[in-house]
């Protein structure tokens, strides 16, 4: 119940962070970067006791990956909730072979894969999101004082990469998003996807080639 309540909270309440910090002082100070996290591996028992803090810390990342992969707001939200629910249920089985973030991304990757496979048979499924991350100006980059032409060019490039990513095979898209949106390194991607490092590299090369072709590589 506590886990479900934690998952349902998208915004922290004013007093909850205080109790969280009291119970688990290191967790809130952890950055999402895996190096820092590896250095301060959180105690599983402490995590179970303060699962809400864990959700607050990693929810944006899991949601972003699910949204970019599925391009469906409701599906991304469902996958995110399922991811943390499964993590809560399996917390005692977390053996700290990877960082917590990579472990959560592994769960998310599996859920997204399952969702995509189930969706193949849903011929009645509606068209997904109408919005696309193509409007660079509306996503916090307007402050860079770009000329309208430069802005348009950037928007065009982002749209081209977005379209190219949507046409990639599932595995290529997954490794592409994990690498170029989530900034995960090859080993982390290998752990999260269950592939060998060499396989991840091959998928990334293919994905990059497809994206570059879509961008119209000149050289």
């Amino acid at each position, binding site marked *: 119940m506590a886990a479900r309540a934690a998952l349902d909270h998208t915004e922290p309440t004013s007093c909850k962070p205080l109790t969280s910090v009291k119970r688990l002082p290191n967790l809130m100070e952890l950055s999402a970067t895996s190096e820092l996290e590896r250095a301060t591996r959180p105690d599983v028992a402490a995590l179970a006791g303060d699962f809400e803090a864990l959700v607050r810390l990693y929810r944006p990342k899991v949601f972003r990956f699910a949204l970019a992969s599925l391009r469906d707001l409701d599906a991304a939200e469902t996958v995110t909730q399922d991811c943390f629910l499964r993590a809560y249920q399996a917390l005692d089985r977390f053996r700290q072979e990877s960082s917590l973030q990579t472990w959560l991304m592994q769960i998310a990757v599996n859920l997204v894969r399952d969702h995509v496979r189930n969706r193949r048979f849903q011929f009645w499924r509606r068209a997904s999101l109408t919005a696309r991350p193509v409007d660079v100006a509306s*996503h916090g980059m307007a402050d860079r004082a770009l000329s309208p032409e430069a802005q348009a060019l950037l928007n065009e490039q982002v749209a081209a990469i977005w379209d190219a990513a949507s046409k990639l095979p599932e595995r290529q898209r997954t490794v592409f998003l994990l690498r170029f949106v989530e900034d995960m390194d090859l080993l982390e991607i290998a752990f999260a996807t269950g592939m060998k490092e060499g396989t991840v590299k091959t998928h990334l090369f293919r994905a990059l080639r497809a994206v*570059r072709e879509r961008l119209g590589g000149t*050289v």
Partner: protein
Amino acid sequence: MNHPPLKHLCSEQIAECVLGLPDPVARRHLEDCAACRAELAKFREALGEFRGAVRGWSENQARELSISARPSESRSWIAAHQLALALLLAAVCIVASIAVPWYERDRSGAVNDAALLNQVDSEVSRTAPSSMEPLMKLVVETGADVGKQE
């Protein structure tokens, strides 16, 4: 004059450079070739913009989701309470529909039992069976007449 053919980095080498894993040949070539350097920089910049755009877009979507989720949360809370109330009423109705006829049947059964017992009592307390009652009356009356004559 014979110029050597212009050779640039292939897709795989560009990908290796983007991933930060360039081989020594590619690294050396990049030092000399402005076109490849520019191409690589352009590609990296585009990927960086893509990252930023997806992150910003995701944050916006999450914000919209939390805004739209709030009223629906309260709505769902109200709906849950209404549902609970409806279920409670339905349960009361079901219990009543079972219990009332049961009670009525029980009560009418008790009344019937009492009537039967009364009937048995009256039957048992009779000196003669009901079919013999006219004869008994006649005997009593005849006996009275005999007494008068004597």
